[in-house]
């Protein structure tokens, strides 16, 4: 009975304050979309880092079937060449710069590739044979990349030596800057949303002061009086958060999935499913926003 009553109160409150409720929905929608965009950029960075990025700095790719580099004149790297390279890595001249290194076989490479490009059609057309085996080196000082590069580029069986960081760092710093911008815009919008929710609840409390006055007098509990107001804000914020989540999903599905992944087939993009992981966080954030601002407002404008 009490639940039904609270629900009917919420319904009438939302109806009576429709324009304000819509503006709350839109403001939370926009602000949480920015929060979500920042989250999506971070997810994308993680996706692009792949399996090795945080573990190693330098990769020595060995010759494979299609290699055209001068060191690969003899065809795919032989086990002897691999053994030589391993010995060289362990030799004191090189070992002083190296923390440790790992060997990634063709099968390992295929496994990691499948993980990273799971959302991309390219994964179906690649076989383990096409992927090069590699040594992945964790440097003591990543700046000393040149030494490794000079030492190994000319070795037999080595296709190329790559400093992964240098390749991706610039892109990542741009993406990090973009997510910082998104977070700052989101911050301003969130302040806006909090104030707007507070104003909405104030108006709502004012337009229903007769009812709440009577509820107070006949001894309705604080919860019964305040809950409809709090839930009104929360419901509006949750709708906004759901819209934001939907927008992020649409961006991942249509923009990244349909457009970008066709233009840049060698880049790993996040899947629409991954953006849905952000949805609970956004909805939670919306609930917290609305809850906090309505609690503060009610304490001032709806004394019980």
């Amino acid at each position, binding site marked *: *009975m*009490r639940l039904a*009553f609270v629900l009917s109160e919420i319904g009438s409150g939302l109806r009576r304050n429709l324009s304000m409720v819509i503006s709350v929905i839109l403001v939370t929608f926009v602000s949480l979309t920015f929060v979500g965009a920042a989250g999506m950029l971070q997810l994308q960075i993680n996706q692009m880092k792949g399996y090795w990025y945080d573990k190693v700095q330098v990769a020595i790719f060995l010759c494979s079937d299609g290699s055209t580099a001068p060191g690969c004149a003899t065809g795919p790297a032989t086990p002897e060449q691999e053994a030589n390279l391993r010995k060289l890595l362990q030799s004191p001249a090189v070992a002083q710069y190296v923390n440790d290194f790992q060997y990634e076989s063709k099968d390992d490479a295929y496994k990691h590739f499948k993980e990273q490009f799971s959302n991309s059609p390219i994964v179906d057309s690649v076989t383990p044979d096409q992927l090069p085996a590699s040594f992945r080196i964790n440097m003591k000082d990543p700046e000393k990349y040149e030494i490794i590069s000079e030492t190994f580029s000319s070795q037999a069986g080595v296709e190329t030596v790559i400093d992964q960081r240098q390749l991706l760092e610039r892109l990542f710093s741009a993406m990090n800057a973009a997510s910082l911008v998104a977070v700052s815009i989101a911050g301003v919008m969130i302040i806006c949303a909090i104030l707007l929710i507070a104003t909405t609840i104030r108006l709502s409390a004012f337009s229903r002061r*007769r*009812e709440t*006055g*009577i*509820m*107070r*007098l*006949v*001894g*309705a*509990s*604080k919860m*019964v*009086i305040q809950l409809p107001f709090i839930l009104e804000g929360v419901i509006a914020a949750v709708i906004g958060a759901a819209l934001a989540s939907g927008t992020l999903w649409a961006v991942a599905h249509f923009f990244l999935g349909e457009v970008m992944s066709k233009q840049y087939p060698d880049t790993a993009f996040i899947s629409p499913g991954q953006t849905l992981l952000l949805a609970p966080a956004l909805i939670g954030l919306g609930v917290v926003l609305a809850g906090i601002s309505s609690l503060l407002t009610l304490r001032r404008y709806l004394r*019980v």
Partner: protein
Amino acid sequence: MIRFENVTKVYDQKARPALDSINLEIDRGEFAFLVGASGSGKSTFLRLVLKEDRASSGAVYVAGQNVANISSWRVPRLRRGIGVVFQDFRLLPQKTVFANVAFAMQVIGKSRSVIRDTVPEVLKTVGLEGKENRLPHELSGGEQQRVAIARAVVNRPGILLADEPTGNLDPTTSMGIMGVLDKINQNGTTVVMATHDDDIVNEMRKRVVELKNGVVIRDEAKALYTSMIPVVGQSRRLRDASGREEPQVVPPRAGSRAEARAELRTAGEGQA
């Protein structure tokens, strides 16, 4: 039922207190009028009983409990034991008579079936049978006040506070309302009514507590609106305005009293 011990209420440190060391006890089942000019402290008294305000000093006991010791989340329970009626009715304009009364039960979580049983009963008590589906603006002032009373007593409070319930009503209608309040009092509810209406006080002959500048200057059983003791120095015009009858004669207007009693009965039967 209500006990004030040395209660002082100060709103503004510079001004005189709204209530000044009040000692007063109103027993269970009693009917008491609270009279006095505007600003004499009647409303403050009612607010303190409801714990809408805290006493600056002294203790207010309601139903044996010191209201200062009631934690804020228990205040609703205190208020469920007290019904309140106002001069301006305070009905919800978009709700029917039935819904207005039912509202008081809904918000404290009474079940639908209890509401369906109780509301018509209470509406009958206040004399509003058959008007369940009217909206407040379709009712006369007296009828609206009856709805307000029904709402105040529907949860069977032990105390009914009425703040000038007849202030907006004509004398005949007022007597009808008094009939309803009297009936509720007969059923065991303590009634405290703040009023300026001298006719009513004189007709009812109940306990009268007179406040002036925050002090109880008179507390008499079966009393009249003005003191039995002649006030020296009061101008003729003032006395005319405040008390038209000569107080020392026992029933001043026997005829009108009989009329009023008749009205009381009809009010009780729900004909007002």
